[in-house]
């Protein structure tokens, strides 16, 4: 693989970082002195410039031979210890090129939208500093040329997500959601980092230890036959990475943070929790496709988890009433489709859906933000209705994006979702089962999305009087991005029109060099145009059914949704509405369990470990006290007794010493006499 060395790629991530630094360190002052416009300009400009550089990179890439489309900007040495070498280096290949377009393009639009949306917030500067920092981290994730640098971006986006979910930090519910997002993501990160270790050392054992993507790809074959704990290394490593992906991309079992993440400002939901960050897991698997291609067991897991998530999240989405929560579960579900694509080896199709989804889901979120803005902060769809005429631009763009996500023919979502469903059916890793689950999910998607449209925009308004009074269309800075994104939702699909519909699938062709390795398997896929037609029509029919159900229940009100909710005592409805009680289960088991363990640990530390220490100290004190007693009452008593006796003796003897010379003389004379007598005897 030939590498073209350039030195401008670094500015794609660094410009937003610069914006973040300026606003983050001096934003408060700038905002006070020069106003919010300047703050906004400082934040938007770097992202737009980065987009410009991305276009430059794309053009340069396009000018190269497909096999040599590889730009590298090696900025500096970063970690270089033993055989572990990771530079601060950014690379652009066809895959990362697609991603930087999404991040800087859609990201740029969302920055512009935020200028209007956040206008009344005092912490305007802080919001934009976070948003820019996020853009930097996401671009590092995408452009980093090694697993480790990708991990920097990976955790960096998690940090920004945390900061933005808890942006309004005075409310505890927001900061709790932020904590949840960060901690659940950390579980994924834990898997990711273990994957890095395993890959590095397994390659190292073959003499090629590296964390740089192109080296890993180059030496991937040396991993074959290598095992750890009796399992193939590639399988274990790809599963570790997939754990990371389930965290960041909100898949079962780690999806729980994403719905709560809706506590953040709506542009954040659009940018981070719909269009870009949550797709990082999909991108990572696409990036490592050459490894996944070597691990069919992992692929099966990926496809299974993806399909299950797509289905379950859709069922929950059917009954939610919060306008953003519906979109959140929809995002979880759509991400599931992308993982299905990854799991059946249809990487290009998955990435294609990632791109189209970024357009229509960003549009939907920003549209819901526009609605919330117009409704003075109301998010409950039961209190909406009839907004169609009051907010026409928002309505039309929202409708277009809804049609796209529902898979209406010729919209972007139609092409990308249909591609995935077809691959799910036809790929050697796929099958009819996956297709059926996928199509069922698609039907539900159409249903809950149109339910949302009907509840929000049609019928009589159910809002309170003063809210109704204030309903207004949003300012230009908010509607302009909506229009652009809605247009995108209509046209980007044509980049990937499949062959049987007469298209050349230019999107797939563009990514071809990246996925060339993985295509070996997919090459055997059935190419049966009539079957492809049949399946496509079937999925359109089912989506139409979903639409009709929504239409009948929420527009015509032929049957009352409340009556359906009351079926079987309302139990099925409650289970869906309460999200299968997964949050409660996790809370009871993992959160309480950990806290319990922590308290037990602290108790053990204070009572047992320190108890032994203090006990030893007390024992010593007691011993010394006993020793003191012994000393006082035994040793000292003996000494004292001896002393007393000596004293007594002395006292008695003292009587002898009277000081009376006569007495002394008597004694002397007497004694001498006695001695002499004794001698004489």
């Amino acid at each position, binding site marked *: 693989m030939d590498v073209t060395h350039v030195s401008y790629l670094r500015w794609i991530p660094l410009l937003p970082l610069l914006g973040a630094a300026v606003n983050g360190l001096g934003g408060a002052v700038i905002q006070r002195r020069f106003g919010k416009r300047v703050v906004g300009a400082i934040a938007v400009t770097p992202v737009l410039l980065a987009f410009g550089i991305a276009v430059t990179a794309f053009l340069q890439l396009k000018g190269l031979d497909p096999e040599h489309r590889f730009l590298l900007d090696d900025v500096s040495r970063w970690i270089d210890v*033993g055989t572990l070498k990771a530079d601060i280096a950014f690379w652009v290949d066809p895959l990362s090129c697609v991603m930087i377009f999404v991040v800087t393009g859609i990201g740029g639009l969302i920055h512009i939208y935020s200028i209007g949306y956040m206008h009344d917030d005092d912490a305007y500067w802080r919001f934009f500093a976070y948003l820019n920092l996020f853009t930097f981290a996401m671009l590092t994730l995408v452009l980093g040329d090694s697993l480790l640098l990708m991990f920097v971006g990976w955790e960096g986006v998690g940090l920004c997500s945390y900061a933005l979910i808890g942006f309004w930090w005075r409310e505890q519910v927001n900061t709790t959601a932020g904590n949840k997002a960060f901690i659940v993501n950390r579980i994924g990160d834990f898997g990711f*980092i273990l994957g890095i270790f395993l890959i590095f050392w397994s390659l190292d054992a073959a003499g090629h230890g590296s964390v740089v993507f192109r080296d890993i790809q180059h030496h991937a074959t040396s991993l074959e036959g290598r095992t750890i704990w009796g399992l193939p290394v590639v399988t274990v490593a790809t599963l570790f990475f997939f754990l990371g992906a389930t965290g960041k991309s909100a898949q079962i079992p780690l999806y729980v943070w994403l719905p709560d993440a809706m506590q953040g400002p709506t542009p954040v939901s659009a940018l981070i929790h719909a269009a870009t960050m949550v797709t990082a897991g999909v991108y990572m698997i696409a990036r490592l496709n050459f490894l996944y291609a070597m691990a069919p067991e992992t692929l099966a897991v990926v496809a299974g988890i993806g399909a299950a998530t797509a289905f379950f999240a859709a069922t929950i989405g059917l009954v939610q009433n919060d306008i953003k929560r519906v979109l959140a579960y929809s995002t979880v579900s759509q991400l599931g489709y992308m993982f299905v694509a990854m799991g059946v080896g249809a990487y290009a199709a998955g990435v294609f859906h990632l791109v189209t989804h970024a357009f229509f889901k960003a549009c939907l979120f920003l549209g819901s933000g526009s609605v919330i803005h117009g409704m003075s902060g109301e998010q409950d769809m039961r209190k909406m209705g009839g907004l169609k005429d009051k907010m026409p631009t928002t309505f039309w763009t929202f409708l277009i994006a809804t049609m796209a996500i529902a898979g209406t023919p010729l919209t972007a979502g139609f092409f990308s979702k249909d591609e995935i469903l077809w691959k799910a059916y036809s790929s050697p890793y796929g099958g009819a089962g996956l297709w059926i689950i996928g199509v069922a999910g698609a039907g539900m998607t159409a249903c809950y999305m149109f339910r949302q449209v009907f509840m929000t925009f049609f019928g009589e308004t159910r809002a309170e009087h003063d809210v109704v009074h204030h309903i207004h269309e949003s300012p230009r800075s908010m509607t302009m991005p909506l229009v652009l994104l809605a247009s995108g939702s209509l046209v980007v699909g044509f980049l990937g029109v499949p062959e049987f519909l007469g298209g050349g699938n230019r999107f797939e062709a563009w990514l071809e060099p990246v996925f060339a390795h993985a295509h070996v398997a997919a090459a055997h896929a059935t190419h049966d145009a009539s079957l492809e037609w049949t399946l496509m029509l079937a999925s359109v029919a089912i989506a139409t059914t979903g639409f009709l159900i929504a239409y009948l229940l929420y527009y015509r009100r032929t049957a009352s949704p409340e009556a359906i909710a009351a079926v079987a005592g309302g139990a099925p409805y409650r289970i869906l509405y309460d999200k299968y009680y997964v949050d409660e289960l996790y809370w009871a088991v993992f959160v309480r369990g950990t806290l319990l363990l922590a308290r037990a640990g602290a108790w053990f530390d204070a009572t047992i470990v320190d108890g032994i220490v203090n006990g030893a100290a007390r024992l010593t004190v007691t011993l010394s006290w006993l020793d003191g007693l012994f000393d006082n009452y035994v040793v000292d008593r003996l000494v004292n007794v001896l002393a007393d006796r000596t004293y007594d003796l002395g006292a008695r003897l003292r009587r002898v010493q009277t000081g009376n010379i006569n007495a002394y003389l008597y004694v002397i004379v007497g004694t001498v006499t006695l001695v002499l007598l004794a001698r004489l005897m």
Partner: protein
Amino acid sequence: MSILTWMTFLPLAGMAVILCLPSRAHTLIKQTALAFTLPPLVMGIWLFEHFDRATAAFQYVQRAPWIESYNITYFVGVDGISVSMVLLTVLLCPICILASWGIDKGIKGYFALFLLLDTGMMGVFVSLDFFLFYIFWEVMLLPMYFLIGIWGGPRREYAAIKFFLYTLAGSVLILIAMLVLYFSNEPHTFDMTQLMAQSATYGTAPIIWGLGLQHLLWLALFVGFAIKIPAFPFHTWLPDAHVEAPTAISVILAGVLLKMGTYGILRINYGMLPIATADLAFWFLAALGTWNIIYGALCAMAQTDLKKLVAYSSISHMGYVMLGMAAFTPQGINGAVLQMFNHGTVTAMLFLLVGVIYDRAHHREIEGFGGLAGIMPVYTGVTALAFFAAMGLPGLSAFISEVLVLLGAWQKYPGLTIVAASAVILTAGYMLWTMQRIYLGTPNEKYLGLPEISARELVTLVPLGVIVVVLGVYPHAVLDLINVSLLNLNQMVAAAPAAVASLR
């Protein structure tokens, strides 16, 4: 005279000067203390510039006869391992002097003792004569005892005595091992380079429980040093000492003193007893280190006193050092020493930050605050940086060292590494939870009037913050210093023949 001698004894000279000053000249005393800790910092920068990174040999060596009848010499010098610790010490000391500016009783005694402590710490890191090392080790103990015992919190006497007795118990074991080593060499010597060169001669024939002399010495030294790290179960003096100690002393305690434990193991256990090191590293460093990581994190999570939480997080983070050094991979051992340095800066920040809030609110109960972000935004910003650094967030210094440790450990102990790595979840848990309870949420009415962090306090924190960021982006500023010496150390252990294979 070696620059190291200047760096070691300048603070002592400062102490002499302070003792001659009148006790009421408060500002003058503080300024003098600062004036005698800044030159070592400048010399440290010079040392950083000029240190030869290509050799594992000791540099800036000075040797002079001292007690000739026992072959004891004044012998100092630094290699990559000690130079990083020397730099950490000279960096933290002036910061701590500034952080002590608010001390209001016994000022003369406080700063005089602090400078004595400074000399003791420097001496430990630069000594290449075991006897000299031991003297400095003990010299350090005494001022620390008084600094906690006089200037500490309500339970200061308990904490000071606990600290003193614990360390003294460790010292006795070190002393015994030192004397055994001294007499094992012919001619008897305390010269560390000699003791290392003779490492193959210390007996490994089993004496008791299958352990040879070398292993017994190793264990005695290990316990002596483990108390300082502190490793479970010898760690309970630490939370008490931290809770009672004044801010600056906590900074020194966590920032420098704890490193002496792991430094001692690397310098003495690794250097002089490589065979025992190879035999015992798994249980006493890798497994115990992993236990430290998890156990410390769990205990931290359950604390209600912010300073105690930080203290337990230290126990957790020092576990990485033990795990990393036990891996005998370039990444593991480099990560371990880098972690020593990074923990020094990050924990120093954390303790300084706790001090800032304690000075204002006069308590540290985590539940007793709330919404400080709205009252002290700049302070909260700096705290967030320190918290995320402690969580090992990529882009900040501790990430590099933790990832190197875990990556390095994976090759030898994948199972332990998985357990150790899972602590990143726990750490995020207790750090974020603390963040939420103290800094976020509705501002507590009681503290609406708290003043923002002062310029002096910022001066103590900003340099550390900058280092934390810079080392996250360019860790080789430290890694290049330590790498060659550590690879050499790894080699020494690797070259040691296995004695008790079953213990591994």
